């Protein structure tokens, strides 16, 4: 199983067991996450034997649906609960990617998760990066999981 398949598997597992939202892969990997519109991005840094960042890019309306399901209550605006939920998704994805890359867990450190959001923004990789961008779909819309690792 390659890295893409493992990220797909762990993303589906996290959404199924913790968020209670059905998720499936939405086609082949993308070359770029493009311009993100009315979205929120949760991200977590990796340092050590593998350096990079794991991000999840979620359109606002999908983030609201995900957070509502995650918390078991209606959430209708982008607030601290939504930012915390998307950050926690990045944290869980990052932790599982760390486990994939480092079995003993000691040679990679994770940052604390953070979020950015906005009307229009980009999330660009610098040169010398192995880039994986995987699209996913839910009943309320699509989102992307992006892994950037230094070569």
């Amino acid at each position: 199983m390659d890295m893409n398949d493992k990220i797909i598997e762990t993303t589906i597992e996290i959404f199924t067991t913790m968020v209670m939202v059905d998720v499936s892969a939405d086609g082949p990997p993308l070359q770029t996450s493009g311009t993100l519109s009315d979205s929120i991005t949760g991200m977590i840094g990796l340092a050590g034997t593998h350096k990079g960042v794991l991000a999840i890019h979620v359109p606002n309306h999908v983030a609201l649906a995900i957070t509502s399901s995650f918390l078991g209550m209606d959430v209708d605006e982008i607030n601290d609960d939504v930012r915390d939920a998307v950050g926690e998704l990045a944290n869980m994805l990052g932790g599982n990617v760390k486990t994939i890359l480092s079995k003993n867990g000691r040679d990679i450190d994770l940052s604390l998760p953070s979020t950015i959001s906005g009307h229009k923004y980009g999330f660009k990789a610098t040169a010398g990066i192995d880039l994986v961008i995987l699209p996913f779909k839910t009943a309320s819309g699509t989102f992307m999981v992006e892994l950037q690792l230094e070569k």
Partner: protein
Amino acid sequence: MGHNVLLVDDSSTMRKIVGRALRQAGLEFDTIFEAADGLLALEVLEKEAVDIVLSDINMPNMDGISFLREKAERPHIKDIPVFMISTETGDDIIGEAKALGAVGAIKKPFTAEMVSEIIGPFLQ
């Protein structure tokens, strides 16, 4: 009579999810205390009667490993059982946590059934 539990995680979402999983698992608690990092968790343990702690590892201010280390130095709270509940379940990290007194670990993502299986026996 139920028990008191302390949930330690910098994510308020995750504290709610863990609390929900405990209820779904049918585990009875009189009070669910919450703390956003290890420092705040120590404050709760100093003030409240807590029977069991579920703690994240990767947190600001004082992480889960430092929390265990500090707790082990305080004789009046050192024996309160702590389960790590984290995405970080590599052998080295969990081994370090157990050496510092953690009694078990739950990997995120988790189900209510997993929580019940791991924590339930400690509440008998």
